[in-house]
């Protein structure tokens, strides 16, 4: 279902959408890069992060 905001010209909408898609993939890439590089051994999330007694 196409449901863009009607008051925006189509070309500008397309540009904004591309930027947002780039943002979506950038955030995901940053997240998975961090998971793989920084959390070796904790790839599936750090269990200790939940209920640490605080």
């Amino acid at each position: 279902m196409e449901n863009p905001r009607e008051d925006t010209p189509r070309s500008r909408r397309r540009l904004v959408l591309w930027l947002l898609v780039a943002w979506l993939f950038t955030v995901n890439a940053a997240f998975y890069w961090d998971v793989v590089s920084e959390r070796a051994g904790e790839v599936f999330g750090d269990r200790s992060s939940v209920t640490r007694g605080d």
Partner: protein
Amino acid sequence: MSALRDLLIVCGFLAAGLGWGVWILRILDLRASGRLRHALLAAGLGLGVLGYVPFALGLAGLLRFPVLLAGYLAVLGMGAVGCISFLRHLGEASGEADGWATLRRPSGPSLALVALLVAIVSVTLLAALAPVVGVDELIYRVAAADTYLREGQMLYLPSSQYHQQPQQVQMLQMWGMALGSDSVTQVVQWVMGLLLLIAVVDLARRFMPMVWALLAGAMFYAVSDVIVLSGRASPDLANGLFLGLAGIAWLEWTARGEDRWLLVTGGLAGLFAVGARLPGAYGAIGLAVLVSVAAWRLLRRRPLRALAAGAAVGAVALAVAAPWYVKTWIQTGSPVWPFLQSVFGFRDWTPEAFRYFGGIQERAIGRWLSLGRILAAPWEFTIEPDRFNSGVVGPLLLGGLPLALVFRLPTQLVRVLAFCGILAPLWYASYPRVRAFLGPIALLFVVVAFLLWQLAESTLVPRLAALGVAGLAVAWLAVGLGQTVRAHTEAAKTTLGIESRQQYLIDRLSQADMQFDWLGDYWALNSVLPKGSRLLIYESRGYYLDFGYDRYDLIAKRETDPERLREPAYVEDQVRGLGSDYVLLWPEPRFATGYEPSNWLEVTLHDLCGSRWPIVYQSQTMVACKVAA
């Protein structure tokens, strides 16, 4: 066999809660839009209200097995009548076409998502049925309930700094614990998480095809705090359910304009407030503001009438929470002990000790209210959630929500954004942990699923983008599956009888996220120390001890002349004053706190142990001394 009994006990709570909730909604003459939503709202209300039964019994000193069993059967019976009434009037519930019907002939992706959810939910259930583990759980979440049951009443525990804050969900867990094993406390949370999952899918299916609605639910259930807490006794999933349902009740009000929905909204916000300790008040405050604004702008009411609508939500929430504050006032002299003691008078704290305690949040996560942290918070919660002592919420919220700039959201989802938007700053200011925001997060995943669906369907981007979206969703669900395996495999194996309960507890509690090394010592002491002994313990976790106990730093935090904690004779008097028969310490001082008087006390206790006080038990991790008569 005990697992089946525990599961049945919780199913009984669910049936009773549903029945009671149906009665409440019927008394208010309210019908939600859709049978399932009606049932979910009823179950949330009913389960929350049920907690007041053991609460009242606890205050009356009636926490005895026969009383709790009789009470359970009574509420179950009354609830059953409500359930039957609900089933009989199923057809009368107002509502739209039921998207759930499409699941009778599911598509391949729908089937895969259902299979994934069933797999994760099954593993978390097996984990919930294992023995109780955790940190907060062993300090007070389950430990305080265990003490209340042992003493037969809800009493003041001066060395437990959190126990006086509202613990409504703990009451339900305590009730189940009295009738079954302590695993019931975890199964209660599992059920709450399952209800929240169903609420997410039920909300989502109103705006998108069923497969995307299922994806919304699966994306939410893949959040690591949801997965971990589904098998644990911390009340965050129950609280997430209460606040999420409060948001849904608010949607009902905005759609229909029936002010009786505000009573439900306020009631659920109140249940969130009494389930989530003191910071949980943010839900009721935010909803009161939101309702006022919505009544003024959306429903075009006069400003005073709009304010009255918001005030009604706040008043109902306060009325729901009031019994807890009154109880705390009676027991401690302050309705919010240990806070505001400068107003109500200090009890078992000195101002200096409380000042140190008051800085606990900042020591845990740093200065989270600085401008830099506030601006970076969305990124930090996504990439480095451990900076907020939180689990992984995933990249799809931060990455996907901005798509709302391009795709027009249905009115109800705009209102969901307003609900989350007004709560977010209050939550961040009060207690910024992912687990304290699970209700709004659940609803945000509905918005994200809608936006991803719109993106996948859009002709403004190539089909490759749709494939990419599917890839991102699959990657996140794979992380969720991995988290499930990582968090719960050992517990699930224990429930299935592959590993013994004792071995599981020993192994699990000594791991890096628990760091509890005294379990074996506790079991040994349970068999060698005289029954009825009272202990003074260094550890903050006293669960799994069969004795009453106080924590050692109680002596330090209420000492007005801390230098005296260096004097053995004085400390010995203080220990005797607490009625302690034995003192449990590590073999060497650990100096684990930054509050110096506690460290001086620790040294003195070590001096006494082995000199004035004979050692009665020693291991690599503990020394226990008998306090000289």
